[in-house]
Protein backbone atom coordinates (compact mmCIF):
# COMPACT_ATOMS: atom_id res chain seq x y z
CA UNK A 1 0.00 0.00 0.00
CA UNK A 2 1.26 3.47 -0.92
CA UNK A 3 -1.03 5.27 1.51
CA UNK A 4 -2.59 4.40 4.85
CA UNK A 5 -6.09 5.06 6.10
CA UNK A 6 -4.55 7.29 8.76
CA UNK A 7 -3.03 9.55 6.10
CA UNK A 8 -6.36 9.74 4.30
CA UNK A 9 -8.02 10.82 7.54
CA UNK A 10 -5.32 13.48 8.05
CA UNK A 11 -5.71 14.91 4.53
CA UNK A 12 -9.50 14.84 4.87
CA UNK A 13 -9.27 16.77 8.13
CA UNK A 14 -7.01 19.41 6.53
CA UNK A 15 -9.57 19.81 3.74
CA UNK A 16 -12.45 19.89 6.26
CA UNK A 17 -14.03 16.81 4.67
CA UNK A 18 -16.16 14.49 6.78
CA UNK A 19 -15.77 10.96 5.42
CA UNK A 20 -17.72 7.92 6.52
CA UNK A 21 -15.83 4.70 7.26
CA UNK A 22 -16.88 3.30 3.88
CA UNK A 23 -15.69 6.45 2.11
CA UNK A 24 -12.37 6.31 3.91
CA UNK A 25 -11.83 2.75 2.67
CA UNK A 26 -12.82 3.74 -0.85
CA UNK A 27 -10.57 6.85 -0.87
CA UNK A 28 -7.63 4.89 0.49
CA UNK A 29 -7.94 2.35 -2.30
CA UNK A 30 -8.37 5.02 -5.00
CA UNK A 31 -5.51 7.19 -3.81
CA UNK A 32 -3.38 4.07 -3.57
CA UNK A 33 -3.95 3.23 -7.20
CA UNK A 34 -3.23 6.86 -8.21
CA UNK A 35 0.05 6.79 -6.33
CA UNK A 36 0.95 3.46 -7.91
CA UNK A 37 0.40 5.05 -11.28
CA UNK A 38 2.75 7.86 -10.23
CA UNK A 39 5.37 5.20 -9.58
CA UNK A 40 4.91 3.99 -13.11
CA UNK A 41 5.44 7.54 -14.40
CA UNK A 42 8.49 7.89 -12.19
CA UNK A 43 10.07 4.88 -13.87
CA UNK A 44 10.40 6.89 -17.10
CA UNK A 45 13.80 8.42 -17.76
CA UNK A 46 13.19 12.21 -17.78
CA UNK A 47 16.80 13.23 -17.26
CA UNK A 48 16.87 15.34 -20.42
CA UNK A 49 13.36 16.78 -20.14
CA UNK A 50 12.84 20.30 -18.80
CA UNK A 51 10.32 20.35 -15.94
CA UNK A 52 7.04 21.86 -17.09
CA UNK A 53 6.30 24.95 -15.06
CA UNK A 54 2.97 25.53 -16.74
CA UNK A 55 0.87 23.71 -19.32
CA UNK A 56 0.59 26.82 -21.49
CA UNK A 57 3.74 27.92 -23.34
CA UNK A 58 3.30 31.41 -21.91
CA UNK A 59 4.88 33.70 -19.36
CA UNK A 60 4.60 37.34 -18.27
CA UNK A 61 0.89 37.82 -18.73
CA UNK A 62 -0.03 41.09 -17.04
CA UNK A 63 -2.62 43.72 -16.53
CA UNK A 64 -1.67 47.40 -16.18
CA UNK A 65 -2.15 48.99 -12.77
CA UNK A 66 -5.52 50.59 -13.50
CA UNK A 67 -8.47 50.75 -11.14
CA UNK A 68 -11.62 49.22 -12.59
CA UNK A 69 -15.03 49.58 -10.97
CA UNK A 70 -15.72 46.98 -8.30
CA UNK A 71 -19.11 45.31 -8.01
CA UNK A 72 -21.67 46.97 -5.75
CA UNK A 73 -21.73 45.88 -2.15
CA UNK A 74 -25.33 44.71 -2.52
CA UNK A 75 -24.34 42.40 -5.39
CA UNK A 76 -21.25 41.15 -3.60
CA UNK A 77 -23.14 40.36 -0.41
CA UNK A 78 -26.19 38.94 -2.19
CA UNK A 79 -25.14 35.31 -1.92
CA UNK A 80 -23.65 35.47 1.55
CA UNK A 81 -25.33 33.06 3.98
CA UNK A 82 -25.32 35.85 6.55
CA UNK A 83 -24.59 39.57 6.40
CA UNK A 84 -24.92 42.60 8.66
CA UNK A 85 -24.08 46.30 8.47
CA UNK A 86 -22.31 45.89 5.12
CA UNK A 87 -20.15 43.00 6.30
CA UNK A 88 -20.12 39.28 5.68
CA UNK A 89 -21.09 37.73 8.98
CA UNK A 90 -19.56 34.54 10.34
CA UNK A 91 -19.57 32.68 13.62
CA UNK A 92 -17.48 34.36 16.30
CA UNK A 93 -13.82 33.77 15.54
CA UNK A 94 -11.85 33.37 18.74
CA UNK A 95 -8.21 34.29 18.29
Amino acid sequence: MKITKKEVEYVARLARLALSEAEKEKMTAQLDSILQYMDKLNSLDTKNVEPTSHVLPLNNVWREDKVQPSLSREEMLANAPEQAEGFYKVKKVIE
Partner: protein
Amino acid sequence: MKFEAVIGLEVHAQLKTKSKIFCGCSTQFGAEPNTQICPVCTGMPGVLPVLNKVAIEYIIKTSLALDCKVNPLSRFARKQYFYPDLPKNYQISQYDQPVSEHGYLDVQVDGKTKRLGITRIHLEEDAGKLLHEVGSRQIDGSYVDLNRTGVPLMEIVSEPDMRTPQEAHAYLIALKSILEYLDVSDCNMEEGSLRCDANVSIRPVGQKEFGTKAEVKNMNSFKGVQKALEYEIARQIKVTEEGERIVQETRLWDADKEMTFSMRSKEEAHDYRYFPEPDLVPVVVDEKWLAAIKATLPELSSQKKERFVKEYSLPEYDAGVLTADKNLSEYFEATIKGYANPKAASNWIMTELLAQLNAANKTIKESLITPKHMREMLELIDKGTISGKIAKTVFEEMFASGKMPDVVVKEKGLVQISDEGAIAKIIEEVLAANAKSVEEYKAGKTAALNFLLGQVMKKTQGKANPGVVNKILKDKLS
Protein backbone atom coordinates in the same frame (compact mmCIF):
# COMPACT_ATOMS: atom_id res chain seq x y z
CA MET B 1 25.09 30.53 32.02
CA LYS B 2 25.09 33.40 29.56
CA PHE B 3 22.57 33.30 26.71
CA GLU B 4 22.30 35.07 23.41
CA ALA B 5 19.21 35.56 21.30
CA VAL B 6 18.79 34.57 17.67
CA ILE B 7 16.24 36.70 15.85
CA GLY B 8 14.87 36.61 12.31
CA LEU B 9 12.16 38.94 11.02
CA GLU B 10 9.40 38.48 8.47
CA VAL B 11 8.19 41.82 7.20
CA HIS B 12 5.02 42.17 5.15
CA ALA B 13 4.76 45.42 3.21
CA GLN B 14 1.70 46.37 1.19
CA LEU B 15 2.78 47.59 -2.21
CA LYS B 16 1.56 51.03 -3.19
CA THR B 17 -0.21 50.01 -6.39
CA LYS B 18 -3.47 51.73 -7.30
CA SER B 19 -5.28 48.46 -8.03
CA LYS B 20 -5.11 45.04 -6.41
CA ILE B 21 -2.65 42.33 -7.38
CA PHE B 22 -4.96 40.17 -9.52
CA CYS B 23 -7.98 42.40 -10.28
CA GLY B 24 -8.87 46.04 -10.90
CA CYS B 25 -10.38 46.78 -7.48
CA SER B 26 -9.00 49.88 -5.76
CA THR B 27 -6.48 49.52 -2.91
CA GLN B 28 -7.43 52.87 -1.32
CA PHE B 29 -7.28 52.63 2.49
CA GLY B 30 -10.27 53.54 4.63
CA ALA B 31 -13.16 52.86 2.22
CA GLU B 32 -16.56 51.65 3.42
CA PRO B 33 -16.44 47.89 4.13
CA ASN B 34 -16.80 45.56 1.16
CA THR B 35 -17.04 48.33 -1.43
CA GLN B 36 -13.72 47.49 -3.13
CA ILE B 37 -14.32 43.85 -3.98
CA CYS B 38 -15.23 41.84 -7.04
CA PRO B 39 -15.66 38.20 -8.10
CA VAL B 40 -11.89 37.81 -8.66
CA CYS B 41 -10.63 38.95 -5.25
CA THR B 42 -13.43 37.17 -3.42
CA GLY B 43 -12.73 33.90 -5.21
CA MET B 44 -16.03 33.31 -7.01
CA PRO B 45 -16.08 30.17 -9.15
CA GLY B 46 -14.83 30.52 -12.71
CA VAL B 47 -12.79 33.71 -12.34
CA LEU B 48 -9.14 34.05 -13.32
CA PRO B 49 -6.48 36.23 -11.69
CA VAL B 50 -4.24 38.41 -13.90
CA LEU B 51 -1.03 39.77 -12.39
CA ASN B 52 -0.56 43.52 -11.88
CA LYS B 53 2.68 44.44 -13.67
CA VAL B 54 3.52 47.30 -11.30
CA ALA B 55 3.49 44.90 -8.32
CA ILE B 56 6.24 42.88 -9.99
CA GLU B 57 8.20 46.02 -10.85
CA TYR B 58 7.99 47.26 -7.24
CA ILE B 59 9.22 43.96 -5.80
CA ILE B 60 12.10 43.85 -8.30
CA LYS B 61 13.04 47.42 -7.35
CA THR B 62 13.07 46.42 -3.69
CA SER B 63 15.10 43.31 -4.49
CA LEU B 64 17.74 45.38 -6.27
CA ALA B 65 17.91 47.93 -3.45
CA LEU B 66 18.48 45.07 -0.98
CA ASP B 67 21.11 43.43 -3.20
CA CYS B 68 18.99 40.33 -3.72
CA LYS B 69 19.51 38.06 -6.70
CA VAL B 70 16.40 38.26 -8.87
CA ASN B 71 15.42 34.81 -10.12
CA PRO B 72 15.16 34.59 -13.92
CA LEU B 73 11.97 32.59 -13.45
CA SER B 74 9.58 32.78 -10.53
CA ARG B 75 6.11 31.44 -10.09
CA PHE B 76 3.13 31.44 -7.80
CA ALA B 77 1.88 28.74 -5.48
CA ARG B 78 -1.27 28.12 -3.48
CA LYS B 79 -0.98 28.16 0.29
CA GLN B 80 -4.02 26.39 1.66
CA TYR B 81 -5.73 27.04 4.95
CA PHE B 82 -9.19 27.86 6.22
CA TYR B 83 -9.93 31.16 7.85
CA PRO B 84 -12.93 33.49 7.44
CA ASP B 85 -10.75 36.34 6.11
CA LEU B 86 -9.57 34.17 3.21
CA PRO B 87 -12.48 33.75 0.79
CA LYS B 88 -10.77 31.36 -1.65
CA ASN B 89 -9.56 29.07 1.17
CA TYR B 90 -6.10 29.48 -0.29
CA GLN B 91 -3.74 32.40 -0.58
CA ILE B 92 -1.86 32.94 -3.82
CA SER B 93 1.74 33.24 -2.68
CA GLN B 94 5.16 32.00 -3.77
CA TYR B 95 6.94 28.95 -2.44
CA ASP B 96 10.02 27.35 -4.01
CA GLN B 97 10.54 30.00 -6.70
CA PRO B 98 10.25 33.46 -5.12
CA VAL B 99 11.02 36.67 -7.00
CA SER B 100 14.42 37.08 -5.35
CA GLU B 101 16.85 35.65 -2.79
CA HIS B 102 20.17 36.14 -0.99
CA GLY B 103 20.37 39.86 -0.26
CA TYR B 104 21.48 41.91 2.72
CA LEU B 105 20.97 45.13 4.57
CA ASP B 106 23.68 47.06 6.43
CA VAL B 107 22.52 48.65 9.68
CA GLN B 108 24.18 50.87 12.27
CA VAL B 109 24.04 49.69 15.87
CA ASP B 110 26.03 51.48 18.57
CA GLY B 111 28.15 53.19 15.93
CA LYS B 112 29.07 49.89 14.26
CA THR B 113 27.92 48.59 10.91
CA LYS B 114 26.39 45.13 10.89
CA ARG B 115 25.41 43.23 7.75
CA LEU B 116 22.08 41.38 8.11
CA GLY B 117 21.19 38.77 5.51
CA ILE B 118 17.93 38.67 3.60
CA THR B 119 16.80 35.15 2.73
CA ARG B 120 14.12 35.89 0.19
CA ILE B 121 11.51 38.34 -1.04
CA HIS B 122 8.25 37.06 -2.44
CA LEU B 123 4.94 38.39 -3.66
CA GLU B 124 1.52 37.35 -2.38
CA GLU B 125 -2.00 38.63 -1.88
CA ASP B 126 -3.24 40.10 1.38
CA ALA B 127 -6.21 38.59 3.24
CA GLY B 128 -9.31 40.41 4.48
CA LYS B 129 -10.00 41.87 7.88
CA LEU B 130 -12.04 40.44 10.74
CA LEU B 131 -13.94 42.57 13.22
CA HIS B 132 -15.07 41.24 16.56
CA GLU B 133 -16.71 44.45 17.69
CA VAL B 134 -17.90 47.62 15.97
CA GLY B 135 -16.30 50.52 17.78
CA SER B 136 -16.82 49.37 21.37
CA ARG B 137 -20.12 47.62 20.63
CA GLN B 138 -20.04 43.85 20.94
CA ILE B 139 -21.51 41.80 18.09
CA ASP B 140 -22.90 38.29 18.26
CA GLY B 141 -20.47 36.95 15.65
CA SER B 142 -17.54 38.23 13.61
CA TYR B 143 -17.70 40.60 10.64
CA VAL B 144 -15.60 40.19 7.50
CA ASP B 145 -14.41 43.12 5.37
CA LEU B 146 -12.75 41.93 2.17
CA ASN B 147 -11.51 45.32 0.89
CA ARG B 148 -7.96 44.36 1.81
CA THR B 149 -8.23 40.95 0.16
CA GLY B 150 -5.95 40.90 -2.86
CA VAL B 151 -3.90 43.98 -2.04
CA PRO B 152 -0.34 43.15 -3.17
CA LEU B 153 1.88 42.16 -0.30
CA MET B 154 5.64 41.76 -0.37
CA GLU B 155 7.15 39.45 2.23
CA ILE B 156 10.77 40.13 3.12
CA VAL B 157 12.31 37.31 5.15
CA SER B 158 15.58 37.98 6.96
CA GLU B 159 18.25 35.48 7.93
CA PRO B 160 18.38 34.71 11.68
CA ASP B 161 21.27 37.20 11.90
CA MET B 162 20.06 39.52 14.64
CA ARG B 163 21.28 39.01 18.20
CA THR B 164 19.55 41.82 20.08
CA PRO B 165 16.20 43.64 20.00
CA GLN B 166 18.17 46.81 19.15
CA GLU B 167 19.50 45.16 15.99
CA ALA B 168 15.98 44.10 15.04
CA HIS B 169 14.79 47.66 15.59
CA ALA B 170 17.65 49.08 13.50
CA TYR B 171 16.85 46.59 10.72
CA LEU B 172 13.21 47.71 10.62
CA ILE B 173 14.13 51.40 10.57
CA ALA B 174 16.62 50.84 7.74
CA LEU B 175 14.18 48.68 5.76
CA LYS B 176 11.37 51.20 6.16
CA SER B 177 13.66 53.98 4.98
CA ILE B 178 14.53 52.01 1.83
CA LEU B 179 10.90 51.19 1.03
CA GLU B 180 10.00 54.86 1.48
CA TYR B 181 12.86 56.05 -0.72
CA LEU B 182 11.77 53.55 -3.38
CA ASP B 183 8.20 54.80 -2.94
CA VAL B 184 6.87 51.22 -3.13
CA SER B 185 5.02 51.13 0.22
CA ASP B 186 3.42 53.57 2.65
CA CYS B 187 5.05 51.68 5.53
CA ASN B 188 2.34 52.68 7.96
CA MET B 189 2.28 50.17 10.80
CA GLU B 190 -0.89 51.62 12.32
CA GLU B 191 -2.81 51.30 9.06
CA GLY B 192 -1.32 47.85 8.62
CA SER B 193 0.59 48.59 5.42
CA LEU B 194 3.71 47.32 7.20
CA ARG B 195 3.60 44.28 9.49
CA CYS B 196 6.30 42.37 11.25
CA ASP B 197 6.53 38.89 12.76
CA ALA B 198 9.61 37.70 14.61
CA ASN B 199 11.19 34.29 15.04
CA VAL B 200 13.15 34.24 18.24
CA SER B 201 15.15 31.65 20.15
CA ILE B 202 17.97 31.64 22.68
CA ARG B 203 21.13 29.58 23.04
CA PRO B 204 24.12 29.55 25.39
CA VAL B 205 26.79 31.94 24.13
CA GLY B 206 29.25 29.94 22.04
CA GLN B 207 26.77 27.25 20.99
CA LYS B 208 26.37 26.89 17.22
CA GLU B 209 23.01 25.09 17.05
CA PHE B 210 19.84 27.14 17.24
CA GLY B 211 17.45 26.68 20.14
CA THR B 212 13.73 25.99 19.70
CA LYS B 213 12.10 29.10 18.34
CA ALA B 214 8.86 30.87 19.05
CA GLU B 215 7.10 32.96 16.44
CA VAL B 216 5.94 36.28 17.87
CA LYS B 217 3.09 38.07 16.11
CA ASN B 218 0.73 40.99 16.60
CA MET B 219 3.27 43.78 17.09
CA ASN B 220 2.00 47.06 15.71
CA SER B 221 4.87 49.49 16.12
CA PHE B 222 8.66 49.38 15.82
CA LYS B 223 8.99 50.08 19.53
CA GLY B 224 6.47 47.27 20.10
CA VAL B 225 8.70 44.86 18.18
CA GLN B 226 11.66 45.80 20.35
CA LYS B 227 9.66 45.48 23.58
CA ALA B 228 8.09 42.17 22.52
CA LEU B 229 11.53 40.75 21.71
CA GLU B 230 12.95 41.96 25.02
CA TYR B 231 10.07 40.29 26.85
CA GLU B 232 10.24 37.06 24.84
CA ILE B 233 14.01 36.66 25.24
CA ALA B 234 13.74 37.18 29.01
CA ARG B 235 10.86 34.68 29.14
CA GLN B 236 12.80 32.01 27.26
CA ILE B 237 15.86 32.48 29.47
CA LYS B 238 13.70 32.15 32.59
CA VAL B 239 11.97 28.99 31.29
CA THR B 240 15.34 27.46 30.39
CA GLU B 241 16.91 28.35 33.73
CA GLU B 242 13.98 26.76 35.52
CA GLY B 243 14.91 23.53 33.75
CA GLU B 244 11.94 23.46 31.39
CA ARG B 245 11.81 23.13 27.63
CA ILE B 246 10.94 25.90 25.18
CA VAL B 247 7.96 24.85 23.07
CA GLN B 248 7.83 25.67 19.37
CA GLU B 249 4.72 27.80 19.09
CA THR B 250 3.16 31.04 17.93
CA ARG B 251 2.87 33.74 20.58
CA LEU B 252 0.89 36.96 20.43
CA TRP B 253 2.23 40.25 21.78
CA ASP B 254 -0.18 42.12 24.04
CA ALA B 255 0.88 45.76 23.88
CA ASP B 256 -1.20 46.77 26.92
CA LYS B 257 0.02 44.02 29.23
CA GLU B 258 3.50 44.10 27.60
CA MET B 259 3.65 40.30 27.50
CA THR B 260 3.50 37.54 24.89
CA PHE B 261 0.85 34.81 25.12
CA SER B 262 0.75 31.38 23.53
CA MET B 263 -1.78 31.05 20.72
CA ARG B 264 -2.19 27.33 21.44
CA SER B 265 -2.96 26.49 17.84
CA LYS B 266 -2.65 22.96 16.55
CA GLU B 267 0.61 22.30 14.72
CA GLU B 268 -1.18 20.56 11.88
CA ALA B 269 -2.74 23.91 10.95
CA HIS B 270 0.69 24.73 9.49
CA ASP B 271 0.51 22.02 6.85
CA TYR B 272 -0.26 24.35 3.97
CA ARG B 273 0.05 21.80 1.14
CA TYR B 274 1.57 24.28 -1.30
CA PHE B 275 1.26 23.46 -4.97
CA PRO B 276 1.94 25.45 -8.16
CA GLU B 277 -0.83 27.94 -8.95
CA PRO B 278 -2.38 26.70 -12.21
CA ASP B 279 -4.22 29.98 -12.91
CA LEU B 280 -1.07 32.07 -13.33
CA VAL B 281 1.81 31.73 -15.77
CA PRO B 282 5.44 32.13 -14.62
CA VAL B 283 7.21 35.49 -14.39
CA VAL B 284 10.38 35.64 -16.48
CA VAL B 285 12.81 38.48 -15.78
CA ASP B 286 15.58 38.91 -18.34
CA GLU B 287 18.72 41.04 -18.06
CA LYS B 288 17.26 43.76 -20.22
CA TRP B 289 14.22 44.27 -18.02
CA LEU B 290 16.35 44.12 -14.91
CA ALA B 291 18.65 46.82 -16.28
CA ALA B 292 15.66 48.99 -17.18
CA ILE B 293 14.29 48.76 -13.64
CA LYS B 294 17.75 49.35 -12.18
CA ALA B 295 17.92 52.59 -14.15
CA THR B 296 14.79 53.85 -12.38
CA LEU B 297 16.18 53.28 -8.86
CA PRO B 298 16.24 56.57 -6.95
CA GLU B 299 19.13 57.78 -4.82
CA LEU B 300 18.88 55.78 -1.57
CA SER B 301 19.57 57.08 1.93
CA SER B 302 23.17 55.84 2.11
CA GLN B 303 24.02 57.50 -1.21
CA LYS B 304 22.18 60.67 -0.24
CA LYS B 305 24.06 60.78 3.05
CA GLU B 306 27.39 60.70 1.22
CA ARG B 307 26.22 63.41 -1.16
CA PHE B 308 25.07 65.65 1.72
CA VAL B 309 28.52 65.37 3.31
CA LYS B 310 30.27 66.22 0.03
CA GLU B 311 27.90 68.75 -1.49
CA TYR B 312 26.85 70.66 1.63
CA SER B 313 29.92 70.04 3.84
CA LEU B 314 27.69 68.65 6.57
CA PRO B 315 29.10 66.49 9.38
CA GLU B 316 28.42 62.73 8.96
CA TYR B 317 26.06 62.88 11.91
CA ASP B 318 23.88 65.64 10.42
CA ALA B 319 23.80 63.93 7.04
CA GLY B 320 22.75 60.68 8.72
CA VAL B 321 19.88 62.25 10.65
CA LEU B 322 18.63 64.28 7.68
CA THR B 323 18.65 61.38 5.21
CA ALA B 324 17.23 58.62 7.45
CA ASP B 325 13.75 59.85 6.51
CA LYS B 326 13.13 60.60 2.85
CA ASN B 327 10.64 63.38 3.58
CA LEU B 328 13.07 65.05 5.97
CA SER B 329 15.88 64.93 3.42
CA GLU B 330 13.59 66.57 0.86
CA TYR B 331 12.55 69.21 3.40
CA PHE B 332 16.20 70.03 4.06
CA GLU B 333 17.07 70.34 0.37
CA ALA B 334 14.04 72.54 -0.26
CA THR B 335 15.10 74.78 2.66
CA ILE B 336 18.64 75.37 1.42
CA LYS B 337 17.65 75.99 -2.19
CA GLY B 338 19.30 79.35 -2.86
CA TYR B 339 20.54 79.61 0.74
CA ALA B 340 24.25 79.63 1.41
CA ASN B 341 24.54 78.19 4.93
CA PRO B 342 23.42 74.53 4.95
CA LYS B 343 24.89 73.89 8.41
CA ALA B 344 22.72 76.60 9.98
CA ALA B 345 19.65 75.07 8.32
CA SER B 346 20.68 71.62 9.49
CA ASN B 347 21.05 72.85 13.09
CA TRP B 348 17.60 74.39 13.18
CA ILE B 349 15.94 71.40 11.52
CA MET B 350 17.68 68.76 13.63
CA THR B 351 17.26 70.43 16.98
CA GLU B 352 14.30 72.83 17.06
CA LEU B 353 12.10 71.43 14.31
CA LEU B 354 12.48 67.72 15.05
CA ALA B 355 12.07 68.30 18.79
CA GLN B 356 8.88 70.33 18.31
CA LEU B 357 7.44 67.86 15.80
CA ASN B 358 8.22 65.03 18.17
CA ALA B 359 6.56 66.79 21.09
CA ALA B 360 3.49 67.56 18.97
CA ASN B 361 3.49 64.01 17.56
CA LYS B 362 3.53 65.35 14.01
CA THR B 363 5.37 64.26 10.89
CA ILE B 364 7.56 66.56 8.83
CA LYS B 365 4.83 66.65 6.17
CA GLU B 366 2.40 68.08 8.71
CA SER B 367 4.77 70.86 9.76
CA LEU B 368 3.27 74.35 9.48
CA ILE B 369 6.84 75.62 9.15
CA THR B 370 7.53 74.98 5.48
CA PRO B 371 11.01 75.09 3.94
CA LYS B 372 10.17 78.65 2.83
CA HIS B 373 9.41 79.72 6.44
CA MET B 374 12.65 78.14 7.57
CA ARG B 375 14.78 79.76 4.88
CA GLU B 376 13.31 83.24 5.39
CA MET B 377 13.83 82.98 9.14
CA LEU B 378 17.47 82.02 8.61
CA GLU B 379 17.89 84.99 6.29
CA LEU B 380 16.46 87.33 8.94
CA ILE B 381 19.07 86.03 11.39
CA ASP B 382 21.87 86.41 8.82
CA LYS B 383 20.84 90.00 8.05
CA GLY B 384 20.86 90.82 11.76
CA THR B 385 17.15 91.69 11.76
CA ILE B 386 16.61 89.21 14.56
CA SER B 387 19.02 87.49 16.93
CA GLY B 388 19.26 83.72 17.26
CA LYS B 389 17.51 84.05 20.59
CA ILE B 390 14.59 86.00 19.17
CA ALA B 391 14.47 83.57 16.28
CA LYS B 392 13.37 80.92 18.80
CA THR B 393 10.34 83.04 19.66
CA VAL B 394 9.65 83.54 15.96
CA PHE B 395 10.08 79.81 15.40
CA GLU B 396 7.55 78.90 18.08
CA GLU B 397 4.99 81.30 16.65
CA MET B 398 5.53 79.95 13.11
CA PHE B 399 5.22 76.40 14.41
CA ALA B 400 1.92 77.17 16.10
CA SER B 401 0.30 79.44 13.50
CA GLY B 402 2.15 78.93 10.22
CA LYS B 403 2.65 82.71 9.88
CA MET B 404 5.65 83.84 7.83
CA PRO B 405 8.67 84.99 9.91
CA ASP B 406 8.61 88.65 8.77
CA VAL B 407 4.94 88.84 9.75
CA VAL B 408 5.70 87.42 13.20
CA VAL B 409 8.58 89.87 13.68
CA LYS B 410 6.36 92.81 12.74
CA GLU B 411 3.33 91.73 14.77
CA LYS B 412 5.36 91.04 17.89
CA GLY B 413 7.77 93.95 17.45
CA LEU B 414 10.76 91.65 17.58
CA VAL B 415 13.17 93.62 15.40
CA GLN B 416 16.64 93.50 16.85
CA ILE B 417 18.10 96.73 18.24
CA SER B 418 21.53 97.25 16.69
CA ASP B 419 21.67 101.03 16.93
CA GLU B 420 24.81 101.81 18.97
CA GLY B 421 23.49 105.09 20.38
CA ALA B 422 20.31 103.49 21.65
CA ILE B 423 22.17 100.56 23.14
CA ALA B 424 24.78 102.80 24.79
CA LYS B 425 21.98 104.72 26.50
CA ILE B 426 20.44 101.56 27.93
CA ILE B 427 23.86 100.33 29.07
CA GLU B 428 24.49 103.55 30.97
CA GLU B 429 21.19 103.11 32.81
CA VAL B 430 22.07 99.52 33.69
CA LEU B 431 25.55 100.45 34.93
CA ALA B 432 24.15 103.24 37.08
CA ALA B 433 21.65 100.89 38.67
CA ASN B 434 24.20 98.11 39.33
CA ALA B 435 27.22 99.88 40.80
CA LYS B 436 28.09 96.85 42.93
CA SER B 437 28.46 94.57 39.94
CA VAL B 438 30.56 97.18 38.15
CA GLU B 439 32.92 97.25 41.12
CA GLU B 440 33.10 93.49 41.22
CA TYR B 441 33.97 93.36 37.54
CA LYS B 442 36.69 95.93 37.97
CA ALA B 443 38.05 93.88 40.89
CA GLY B 444 38.50 90.99 38.44
CA LYS B 445 35.24 89.05 38.84
CA THR B 446 34.49 88.39 35.16
CA ALA B 447 31.17 86.67 35.90
CA ALA B 448 29.78 90.11 36.71
CA LEU B 449 30.00 90.98 33.03
CA ASN B 450 27.48 88.26 32.15
CA PHE B 451 25.14 89.57 34.81
CA LEU B 452 25.29 93.08 33.37
CA LEU B 453 24.80 91.73 29.87
CA GLY B 454 21.75 89.86 31.08
CA GLN B 455 20.33 93.04 32.59
CA VAL B 456 20.68 94.86 29.27
CA MET B 457 18.94 92.01 27.42
CA LYS B 458 16.20 91.97 30.03
CA LYS B 459 15.61 95.69 29.65
CA THR B 460 15.28 95.31 25.88
CA GLN B 461 13.16 92.13 26.08
CA GLY B 462 15.99 90.25 24.41
CA LYS B 463 15.94 92.48 21.36
CA ALA B 464 19.37 94.12 21.75
CA ASN B 465 22.01 92.79 19.38
CA PRO B 466 24.21 90.75 21.77
CA GLY B 467 27.40 91.46 19.79
CA VAL B 468 26.90 95.19 19.96
CA VAL B 469 25.96 95.08 23.65
CA ASN B 470 29.07 93.09 24.46
CA LYS B 471 31.34 95.49 22.65
CA ILE B 472 29.93 98.69 24.15
CA LEU B 473 29.69 97.19 27.62
CA LYS B 474 33.37 96.23 27.58
CA ASP B 475 34.32 99.69 26.27
CA LYS B 476 32.44 101.42 29.06
CA LEU B 477 33.89 99.20 31.78
CA SER B 478 37.52 99.51 30.73
